[in-house]
């Protein structure tokens, strides 16, 4: 199974070097061939399992409780402005 590494890297927002693309293409194709072994299994009428606890809709009371302060939340940020996370402009006009 050939994988379009450029396309996947773009979807995953992963910057890749040119030589990395070739290497990953080979490795990922090998791994995909391995996991395709699951095709051998008859899964007709088999339910999916996405979690093993059986819990559903775990909720708590809608009450505000202490959390991180603004200062704490910004403690590791590289770029901030007036107590906000600062990012590159998306819409410019």
């Amino acid at each position, binding site marked *: 199974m050939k*994988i379009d*590494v450029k396309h*996947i*890297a773009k*979807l*995953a*927002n*992963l*910057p*890749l070097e040119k030589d*990395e693309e070739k290497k*990953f293409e080979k*490795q*990922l194709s*090998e*791994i*995909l061939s*391995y*996991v*395709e*072994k*699951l*095709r*051998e*299994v008859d*899964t007709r009428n*088999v*339910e*999916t*399992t*996405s*979690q*093993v*606890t*059986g*819990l559903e809709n*775990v909720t*708590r009371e809608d009450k505000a409780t202490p959390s*991180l302060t603004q200062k*704490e*939340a910004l*403690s*590791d*940020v*590289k770029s901030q402005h007036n107590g906000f*996370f600062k*990012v590159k402009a998306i819409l410019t006009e």
Partner: protein
Amino acid sequence: MKLNELTIKLAREGLKTKKFSSVELTKACLEQIKKHNPSLNAFITVTEKDALEQAKKTDSLAFQGEALEAKPLLGIPIALKDLFSTKGIKTTAASNALKDYIPEYDATVVNKLKDSGAVIVGKLNHDAWGHGASGENSDFGPTKNPWNKDYVPGGSSSGSAVSVASDMCIASTGTDTGGSSRLPAAFCNVVGLKPTYGRVSRYGVVSMASSLDSIGHLTKTVEDSALMLNVTAGQDLDDATMPNQEVPDYTKNLKNGIKGLRIGKPKEYFIQGVDSQVKQLTDAAFKKYEALGAEIVDISLPHTEYANPCYYIIQPAEVSSNLARYDGIRYGSNRSNFGEEAKRRIMLGTYTLSAGYYDAYYKKAMQVRTLIKQDFDEAFNKVDAIITPVSPTPPWKLGEKINDPLEMYLSDIFTVTANLVGIPGLSVPIGFVNKLPVGMQILGPQFSEAKLFQIGYAYEQSTEWHKRKPEMLK
């Protein structure tokens, strides 16, 4: 015996009877770290000043009566895998993407350990983000196996296993998403627990695969493992995936023995391709259990060969989702700082979840997961526990598998089943192959940890593996 060579049990007794202080105990561990960490690379951060301050504080709380009873790990030096958020202490996930990140809060388990009086001596090295089975995927250099420094200690909780095996701390925390506490424990001759999914809170621990992650620990003995679980287990409102299950005293039935217990031996874990000496040692363990009074039952877990491919679809898919948050905007640095293995898994996950491929890969894997779970449900109707080798091979040489990611993934074939099914597994040493440790894992139904400890203890106490120490320490 040097103080850092003690177990939790013996250290607690010594502290209680004032044979030594927590400061002396902590100093012994810190000295061992100074002596051996340069060649083993088990620690990323050593918190010497904080640890000694903490130890001094616990010494001043008289080691008796209420203080001692209420705090089961009072004064005991513990180390934490660097996936565990520690307030004010660098938490890197062993990745360059977080190499300077300092959390503003403690993980729930860290809080519980601190509340129980533990002294935190440092943060441990591991495969970055939990991605690996050898310890070689750390962005801070590989950790070495103290039994032979040319060999891998297992991963991803490599530093956790090595620090305990080389007496740099009395116990350590780990995580287990596909075997990451059990495998390094087996490769380093220590005890590793993967608890039931939902037994121990995941809050504050860097997420790898949210339906598979479990919070484990590594100790020198089975009893110590039970003592740790008494502290870490229990419902947490900050983790919504924890069933409301009472926490028993995990040491209560420890010494009950195993007469009449039925232990399953699944044929699919003893196939060709499993190292013959590993098979021999595991067979010897079964014989020991028979001699102790257990009934060995041959069973079959027919979908075993599909567990690893199933895992390597589900896990990378969940990894790609969990690592999406590391965009360098709110914390950490940008995504070009991910290591190779992280990039591989993110891309694998992105691919299998993308439009047009979801049904063929992710949905299929979730269905196979149901069949694997059914295998175990049926087996546990016939037996109380299942024992298998932890790894198909003994530890391999550093560098041997690092250029072949698929080869590395194959070392997980026996451990991933417990994570897919959400059941607990206890890894216990069963001997050596060419002077390198080998372990067996004891698997049980969900929330059966007390039974696993009982079964593991019976074997451990009738053997001497747990008393051995690596040559390099002498």
